[in-house]
């Protein structure tokens, strides 16, 4: 197995792990999700380094690598959409809270800062 094959296989394994991120329990499964993303980051970085300056391969190898990379890219995009859906759901809950708030006349001021950089 060539270096490229090994790098692509590692990327595929790491990308497959994205599907295991528990979108319904993102807070509880955050550590595992973060670990999966870290592994994928390392795989992508390794691949980028391998395909950097001076890299050559046969047309067959290149076509196979492109196909496999596109599949990983699509899987990553799907994971992105999944996370965006989680965000939309959370914000929908927030809006629902506001409606409840308005209906019942609560007085609590919401926390003025939701700092997600932490």
């Amino acid at each position, binding site marked *: 197995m060539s270096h490229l094959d090994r790098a692509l296989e590692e990327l595929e394994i790491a990308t497959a792990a994205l599907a295991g991120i528990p979108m319904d329990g993102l807070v509880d499964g955050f550590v595992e999700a973060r670990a999966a993303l870290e592994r994928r980051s390392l795989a992508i970085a390794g691949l980028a380094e391998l395909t950097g300056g001076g890299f050559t391969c046969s047309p067959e*190898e290149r076509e196979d690598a492109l196909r496999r990379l596109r599949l990983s890219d699509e899987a990553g995009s799907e994971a992105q959409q999944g996370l*965006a859906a989680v965000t939309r759901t959370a*914000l929908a809950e927030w809006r629902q809270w506001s409606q409840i708030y308005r209906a019942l*006349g609560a007085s609590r001021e919401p926390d003025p800062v939701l700092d997600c950089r932490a």
Partner: protein
Amino acid sequence: VPFTPLVFTGISSFSSDFQTVLNRAVSIASLPLKTLQNNEADILTKKTVLGSLNTAVDALGTSIAALGTVAKNKALVATSSNSVLVSVVNSGATSAATYTISDITSVAKAASETSKIGYADANATPVSASGQVKLWVGAKSYGITLTAGTNNLAGLRNAINSLGVGATATVLTTGTGLTPNYLSLSANSSGAAALQLFEDPDGANTNLVTSANQGANAIFKLNGVSVSKTSNLVNDVVSGATFTILGTTDPAATVSLTLATDRTQLQSAIQNFASKYNALVDSVGGQVGPAAGLLSGDLIVREVQNDLRQVASYQGSGDIKSLSDLGVQLGKDGKITFDTTVFTALSASQVNSAFDFFGSPGTGFGGLADKFSQITDPVTGLVKLQQDNYDQADKRIQSNITDLNDRIGQLQTRVAAQLQAADALQAQLTSQQSVLTATLQSLNFTSFGKAAV
């Protein structure tokens, strides 16, 4: 309190969109808060206004009851021709009268004696050779046995005081001489009762205390009739008048006690009533009309207005039939004025009729005080009930707020955590996709024909 805008600070490219959504949600949420705050402020203001109104209502009711009391007592005032020797107050008299006090030969006083000798040590020197003493309070005697440990001044004092028979013993310490400690024995009330303390009552029977300050009754004549009282305060001889004997009289001297109507008492009561009436009109006026306060339309305000009208229009059945007959006029502004010249010009007969008009705290004009009591009664009054309602409403609001705040707090924490997690993962994934896309592009331009690495 204005809402603080919610700030969402994320690291993903969606952060600004999140912020827009949150701003909108918080903006919507701020509407009920203001309403709620206004409602709560209104409740507090209503309670305050109601409290002020209650004070004014109570003051008017009290002034009306006072008019009834003055009328019931015929505005009688008690006076003494010699207040140095005899003072007098009206304690409920309902008719004029004059009494003569003479021959005050004794002023009531309480017995107060002291041990004939002093003792060296109040806690050790024996006071009784036999250990047996007998205390006499007037005609009653009480035996006391002193033991080795209590046969001293302090022990004797404690024994006497523990009897609780209307005499109090104390130890006096002069601080001079070899025997500086004495027993002081005093009757708890005035009256002709002797205090004696006999040592060895079955033997030598020696009185341990002096007989120099025995108690005495107040002795005098009322309208020539001899009276003897244990107290100088005499409230059970003349109905409705309480007088106090303060000194003895010369043999031929007399003191006159007079109960007579003083119309200025009634005038002052009417003046006070007018003042309180107008104060209440002002208080109610702030809650009616175009610039009415928060109590506009309130049942209590309407009730007070109705009661005010009944007061102003009250009709009696005697020579004095209305307030206007006494110089009290209702103005166009709803307030009343009191023309004292009209009142001063009333005859004695008309003043008596005025007493009938005002009645008593429970009858006639004075009976109107009950109407205001029904409003201000601290337990069953309308104001109390209304304030209880306000308190309950406030509690309901507070309870709702507490419950909702709990739910909101939990929801907010959860949403924030979800957003934070999603945003962090999103940022990382976006970065990965960028690198992956670049890798794809790079591979697209890679030359081929060489061996794979």
